């Protein structure tokens, strides 16, 4: 299997070199681009292959929130990984699917990378293009399609808002549908909600 394209964004040359080396352990000739500032990263296109984006904590400055969010929205199928030993700022939590703590041991980081790239033995590959939703995801989709907020969904399904966000990300990635209105149409087409329910959800 080939790894998806990888982008590493960090001002720390050593961190970049280190991560690149570890990724090489997973696969001999990975496609990696490295950047030292957010401005240099070329914009992503919707129809492009998904990209794995590693972003180091020094890029989490207040001024960069909007830019990072924008980058994330360019193609939600992209997977963002935070390289940090600290808590991710709240505004950015939606964006990141994984966190790697650079202070961990080499083996631990390698394990995480295998997990992120979906090449753990036994586990289904993350990049297999699977479009069937799990039961839980279908439940979340139903609530989203009814127009509920993350907080409301969290209260209804007894899961944390963080989990809601992760489910939503996965749903969007699996279905290729990003907007709430689009998800609602999908839900009606597949009998997850009725057309009447959609009408009454004032979306």
């Amino acid at each position, binding site marked *: 299997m080939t790894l998806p394209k990888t982008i590493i964004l960090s001002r720390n040359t050593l961190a970049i070199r280190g991560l690149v080396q570890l990724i090489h352990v997973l696969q001999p000739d990975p496609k990696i681009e490295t950047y030292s500032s957010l401005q240099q990263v070329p*914009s992503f*296109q*919707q129809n492009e292959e998904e990209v794995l984006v590693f972003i180091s904590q020094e890029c989490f400055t207040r001024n960069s929130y*909007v*830019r990072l969010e*924008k980058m994330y*929205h360019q193609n939600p199928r992209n997977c963002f990984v935070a390289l940090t030993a600290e808590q991710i700022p709240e505004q950015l939590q939606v964006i990141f699917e994984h966190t790697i703590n650079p202070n961990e041991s080499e083996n631990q980081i390698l394990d995480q990378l295998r997990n992120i790239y979906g090449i753990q033995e036994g586990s289904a590959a993350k990049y297999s293009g699977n*479009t069937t939703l799990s039961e839980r995801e279908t439940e979340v989709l139903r609530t989203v399609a009814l127009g509920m907020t993350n907080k409301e969904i969290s209260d209804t399904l007894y899961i944390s808002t963080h989990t809601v966000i992760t489910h939503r990300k996965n749903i969007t990635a699996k*279905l*290729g*549908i*990003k*907007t709430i*209105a*689009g998800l609602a*149409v*999908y839900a*009606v*087409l*597949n009998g997850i909600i009725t*057309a009447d329910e*959609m009408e009454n959800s004032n979306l």
Partner: protein
Amino acid sequence: MEFTIHSKLADIIHRNYLLLPVLNRFDIQLGFGDRTVEQLCMEKGIHTDFFLVMINSFHDHDYFPQERLLSFPLELILEYTRKSHRFYLDFKVPQIENMIQQLSESADAPLRKHFILIEKFFAQYKAELIEHIQEEENNIYPYITTIDKAVNRGTITPQHVVLIEKNPIKTYADRHDNVEDKLYDLKNLIIKYLPPSQNNTLSNSLLVELFRLERDLNDHARMEDKVLFPMVQKIENQIRKNVL
């Protein structure tokens, strides 16, 4: 760069017919005979360099000479993006709307229910696009023209400074998007999830139009993000410097 001043317009269109709407934005209509880019631009008083960069960058998305684009007069860029707005609203959106409606009408009862959803969904998209364009044409573009004129004519006043401090282009640029999330969804709904329609030919044409609109909007947003807004930022800086 694929096309040069010596390329014939007819050859350009043979090579890539998607460029036709781009030519229209320069008021070029079909029937160009054997004229080359250079000849036609001369005749019509079109900025040849700008024209070439625009068709080449639309033709090949990787060709995007940002420095060069930034050196063109701002009015040319504005005129181009304005004409693109008109193309979307006056032509492309109604065309797609029509196609969806036709599909809906030709479907039998169970399928029609589904098409009604798609019709509504597209109506929401249309509203979003209109809102985006209206904000640009009613607020952003007039602001740009005002400060551009002030700098060009050397008539900068303290009001201009207030204007750029109150609402610098960066505020808009940061939340500016290419208005195509819903378009992306619509494509997938049609490709993957809508039950097969009896009218295959029309469904295919609809998809093709959606892809075209998407491509055009991406190109358009790139012009605004990477050329127009940076130009405006430069003008704002000039005004700031001028006053200090």
